[in-house]
């Protein structure tokens, strides 16, 4: 290939020279160039190496189907591998390099892989590493481990940066009446027709310019028509997006778009995202995605300097490059003739091989007038040259097939094996394309059960005038479907060539060994496909996976049809009988960054803060995550770490008083005449007779009898209850209550409202808790033991007129209260409480101390109620009323759930009091440290009250069965084995004297 930039012509701006580097060498191109066209104009031919054999690869196309010029763009944190040079716009300072090669794409040591070609034939990985005889466990795997590193390096696809991506990506949501994908003649005309009808039209184009095939035309009329259509579209108010790929179609007209915002800009505005990921909901979709030109399999058809014909035309007419001097154009259809003539007119010596015997007169004269040498019944057989093309062996069609017919020197081979409409988006919807014999391609079916219309060459309409009509026709269908008025234009039938295509997929002559590529990116040859057939692969889907045909970054755009044709031939069938593979999104690769959008770091998931958050921080809290919540973990004083802090907080709370932000608990208002009945059905324990002004601890089961949640519910009036749930299950409980009321128990007159955000709360725990609250309420008499007994509830007013509801409930095991105020008063509540608690030598405590105190008491939380535990397992069986039915009451009696040897909640302490142990350890009988053991540890803490470490967990048959026995807490990957004793879970103040006091 000896490409030359022409002195004029094309859509490039010769006044804007652009400097860029290729493998470190400085080069220049022009504004309007792609990286591929600029490299071609600079005489670069070998731009990459193939996946397995490391054969040299050059530019094969001018578009998204590129399979050769796959390069790495950018450096450092912005290094982006596997970029198609044909789609990368040139910008000043662009740094690109070849990949899959060392030391360079021209001199690649990996090319020795080519010598071992037989090792890499179809099914190579399967045969070598999974089925090695003898089929002993681990044999194949062992070899794989050994060779994987070498092979992965040899058969790589470029290397991504290991540094964090510095760019920002956005998610955008959009709506439109009509989405038009593709802005060629059909797309432009469809969009204009719909926009003129007053519809909201969104036209998306993957290229940097609108126009599609108009951009590759040399004549002035085409250029004018394109400009005219775009001007009219602007006037009609259509929205148009370039550099935007509709990569997938989904249910209900949802389309996924990838907008490449800054990939073409040297120094983008730092406020711009690199990509935008659009989710567009379109009422109607017009797919005008064009067609891709097919290759033909012949010897060394992967050499740099073998391209498709349309690419030759594009480089000539769009980029002002004569891509070769001695050019052979090989075709089996009419579409190559214009290109051959244009290349000849531009100064190249052109030979045209047409596989067909009869050529229409007009085609003959078109090339004849341009000095093209036409050879009918001729096809390319084998390319000569190793790093490029220096000659071509021909074949001619005879009675029994092809036979060799001499050769010709040339520097470029352009091939057209026919055209494949881009039916990918239709395929995404599960709609199977059908084989059109006359046009030798797959097209969409006539009837589609969704508002999707194919237009232009995507519907196998080959000439531009017909494409305009095709677009208009599709648009009128969309207009009518939306209730508008339009005169239905008849859609042109597939076709448009003067003489029919003659299918040609492979050229071979008997007795000649050729290396003919079907999928040049994955190095799949015609022999690989035949080998797969011989080995019994009949399904196309299996063929694809076995040979990896179509699994490279182009997703089968290049090789699929040839592969199908070869399979059909081997099986003695027609192509449609063999089937087509299903195209799946994305049409072209979507960056991981675009998928994640802004959902990274702090935005990865919602962060919930209580209204006391700032107050807690101001008072020395170290925070931790509890689900989505940010909660105080501990309040370290000078010189304290977490261990010192939580031990002091626990000790202080048990001695005087402690305050703890409990706002994150779920809170649900349950109101209505049937509220009492409702609670009585959902809790295992009786709620029918809970007096006004009292709270009750309750347990809820799921329908299947497993514990769902626990918490306290306060009765505020005859018809008004205030339920608290655990932090973790707040959402789940709310959903379940709504479901029960709206579906199963529609007759119950109850309304549930989540008030978790409305109320902020603090626990006030410890012997001096009443004293603290007395100092805070306007009327201290409400706090007396008689007025406010254990499990009592009051609604009162705090100093300063702050409304407040308080219950005397305890999670810590001390005399304790939970006080809630409207969220806006959160800081005021804490100020009041702390002003009273601090002089009493009280403390603030966090989750760590909260956990320590609840473990001492044997109170369960989410760590214990893990969705496998029954109410009996948790040691709370007496909470299940035998006198009533409730959710889960039938199913909790399933035999398996009633077994005596089920794991039950127990307390755990080390045999040697100086030892510690870990949550997550497996509890095993002494001498039987293996398997699943007898139970597990859910939570551990240092107990200041007992002076050693304690834990909660579950062990088969409960603590009574293990009394006096040594049990092993096995933690093989961390601490090893620790000897422990199993005790009652109620390790501290088991009779609750401190609580009632």
């Amino acid at each position, binding site marked *: 290939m000896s490409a030359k930039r022409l002195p004029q012509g094309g859509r490039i701006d010769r006044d804007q020279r652009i400097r860029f580097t290729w493998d470190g060498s400085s080069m220049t191109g022009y504004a309007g160039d792609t990286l591929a066209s600029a490299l071609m104009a600079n005489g670069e031919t070998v731009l990459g190496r193939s996946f397995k054999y490391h054969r040299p690869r050059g530019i094969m196309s001018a578009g998204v189907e590129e399979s050769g010029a796959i390069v790495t763009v950018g450096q450092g944190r912005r290094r982006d591998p596997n970029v198609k040079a044909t789609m990368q716009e040139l910008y000043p300072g662009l740094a690109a390099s070849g990949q899959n090669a060392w030391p360079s794409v021209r001199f690649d040591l990996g090319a020795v892989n080519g010598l071992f070609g037989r090792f890499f034939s179809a099914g190579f990985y399967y045969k070598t590493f999974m089925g090695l005889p003898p089929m002993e466990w681990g044999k194949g795997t062992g070899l794989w481990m050994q060779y994987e590193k070498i092979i992965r390096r040899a058969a790589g696809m470029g290397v991504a940066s290991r540094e964090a991506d510095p760019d920002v990506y956005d998610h955008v949501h959009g709506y439109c009446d009509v989405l038009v994908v593709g802005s060629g003649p059909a797309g432009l005309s469809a969009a204009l027709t719909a926009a003129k009808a007053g519809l909201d039209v969104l036209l998306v184009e993957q290229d940097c310019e609108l126009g599609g095939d108009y951009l590759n035309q040399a004549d002035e009329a085409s250029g004018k028509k394109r400009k005219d259509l775009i001007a009219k579209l602007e006037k009609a108010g259509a929205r148009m997006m370039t550099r935007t790929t509709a990569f997938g179609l*989904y*249910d*209900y007209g*949802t389309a996924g778009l990838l907008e490449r915002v800054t990939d073409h800009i040297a120094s983008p505005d730092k406020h711009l995202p690199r990509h935008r990921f659009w*989710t567009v*909901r379109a009422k109607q979709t017009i797919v005008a995605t064009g067609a891709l030109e097919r290759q033909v399999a012949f010897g060394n058809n992967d050499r740099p300097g073998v391209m498709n014909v349309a690419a030759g035309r594009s480089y000539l007419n769009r980029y002002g490059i004569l891509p070769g001097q001695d050019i052979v154009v090989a075709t089996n259809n009419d579409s190559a003739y214009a290109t051959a003539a244009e290349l000849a007119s531009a100064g190249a010596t052109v030979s045209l091989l047409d596989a067909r015997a009869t050529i229409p007169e007009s085609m003959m004269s078109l090339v004849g007038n341009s000095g093209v040498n036409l050879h009918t019944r001729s096809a390319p057989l084998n390319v000569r040259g190793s790093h490029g093309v220096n000659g071509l062996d021909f074949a001619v069609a005879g009675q029994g097939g092809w036979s060799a017919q001499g050769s010709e020197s040339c520097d470029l081979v352009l091939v057209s094996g026919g055209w494949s409409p881009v039916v990918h988006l239709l395929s995404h919807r599960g709609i199977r394309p059908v084989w059109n014999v006359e046009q030798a391609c797959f097209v969409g079916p006539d009837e589609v*059960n969704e508002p999707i219309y194919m237009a232009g060459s995507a519907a196998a309409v080959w000439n531009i005038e017909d494409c305009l009509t095709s677009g208009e026709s599709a648009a009128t269908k969309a207009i009518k479907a939306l209730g508008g008025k339009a005169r239905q234009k008849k859609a042109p039938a597939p076709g448009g060539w003067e003489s029919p295509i003659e299918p040609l997929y492979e050229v071979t002559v008997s007795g000649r060994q050729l290396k003919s590529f079907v999928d040049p990116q994955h190095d799949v040859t015609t022999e690989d496909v035949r080998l797969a057939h011989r080995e019994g692969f009949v399904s196309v889907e299996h063929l694809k996976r076995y040979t990896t045909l179509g699994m490279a970054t182009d997703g089968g755009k290049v090789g699929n049809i040839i592969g199908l044709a070869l399979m059909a031939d081997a099986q003695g069938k027609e192509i449609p009988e063999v089937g087509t593979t299903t195209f799946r999104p994305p049409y072209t690769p979507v960056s991981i960054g675009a998928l994640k959008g802004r959902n990274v770091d702090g935005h990865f998931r919602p962060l919930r803060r209580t209204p006391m958050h700032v107050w807690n921080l101001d008072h020395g809290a170290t925070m931790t995550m509890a689900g989505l919540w940010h909660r105080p973990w501990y309040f370290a004083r000078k010189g304290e770490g977490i261990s010192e802090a939580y031990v002091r907080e626990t000790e202080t709370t048990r001695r005087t008083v402690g305050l703890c932000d409990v706002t994150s608990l779920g809170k649900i208002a349950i109101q209505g005449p049937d509220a009492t009945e409702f609670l009585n*059905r959902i809790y295992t324990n009786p709620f029918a007779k809970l007096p006004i002004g009292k709270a009750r601890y309750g347990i809820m089961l799921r*329908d*299947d009898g497993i514990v769902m949640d626990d918490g306290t519910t306060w009765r505020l009036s005859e018809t008004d209850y205030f339920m608290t749930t655990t932090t973790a299950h707040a959402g789940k409980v709310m*959903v379940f209550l*709504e*479901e029960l*009321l*709206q*579906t*199963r128990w*529609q007759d119950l007159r109850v309304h549930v409202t989540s008030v978790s955000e409305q109320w902020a709360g603090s626990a006030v725990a410890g012997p001096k808790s009443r004293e603290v609250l007395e100092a805070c309420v306007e009327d201290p008499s409400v706090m007396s033991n008689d007025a406010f007994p254990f499990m009592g509830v009051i609604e009162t007013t705090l100093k300063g007129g702050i409304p407040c509801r308080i219950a005397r409930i305890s999670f810590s095991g001390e005399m304790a209260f939970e006080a809630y105020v409207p969220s806006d008063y959160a800081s005021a509540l804490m100020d009041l409480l702390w002003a009273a608690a601090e002089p009493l030598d009280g403390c603030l405590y966090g989750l760590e101390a909260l956990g320590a105190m609840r473990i001492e008491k044997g109170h369960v939380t989410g760590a214990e109620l893990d969705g496998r535990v029954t109410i009996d397992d948790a040691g709370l069986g007496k909470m299940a009323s035998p006198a009533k*039915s*409730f*959710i889960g*009451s*039938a*199913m909790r*009696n*399933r035999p398996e759930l009633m077994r005596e040897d089920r794991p039950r909640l127990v307390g755990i302490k080390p045999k040697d009091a100086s030892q510690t142990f870990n949550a997550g350890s497996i509890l095993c009988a002494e001498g039987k440290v293996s398997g699943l053991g007898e139970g597990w540890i859910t939570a551990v803490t240092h107990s200041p009250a007992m002076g050693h470490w304690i834990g909660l967990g579950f062990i088969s048959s409960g603590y009574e069965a293990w009394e006096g026995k040594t049990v092993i807490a096995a933690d093989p990957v961390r601490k090893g084995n620790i000897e422990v004793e199993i005790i009652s879970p109620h390790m501290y103040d088991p009779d609750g004297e401190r609580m009632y006091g």
Partner: protein
Amino acid sequence: MIRINCPFCGERDHTEFSYGGDASIVYPELDASMEEWHDAIFMRENIRGMQSETWHHANGCRMWLVVERDTMTHEIQSVRPAHKGNAAVLSTTDTGGEQ
């Protein structure tokens, strides 16, 4: 992306909703036998085609809906409030509320 026409909120992405389950299940009385509860909780048809199912408009109006959806094509035939009172108040038709 399935789009569900909530009778209260209008047409919304399915990501605003959470799937409930088979809407044809009649849950037994609380004092029904273990066998009846077993069947109600665990026994499900694996329908290919139109299925009646519950959805919760969790990130919307919080209404539980009964949706008739084709499990093959995701085509939705009807959406209505699960609660008869809600249905009466919204006086919806079977094809959903505001169009």
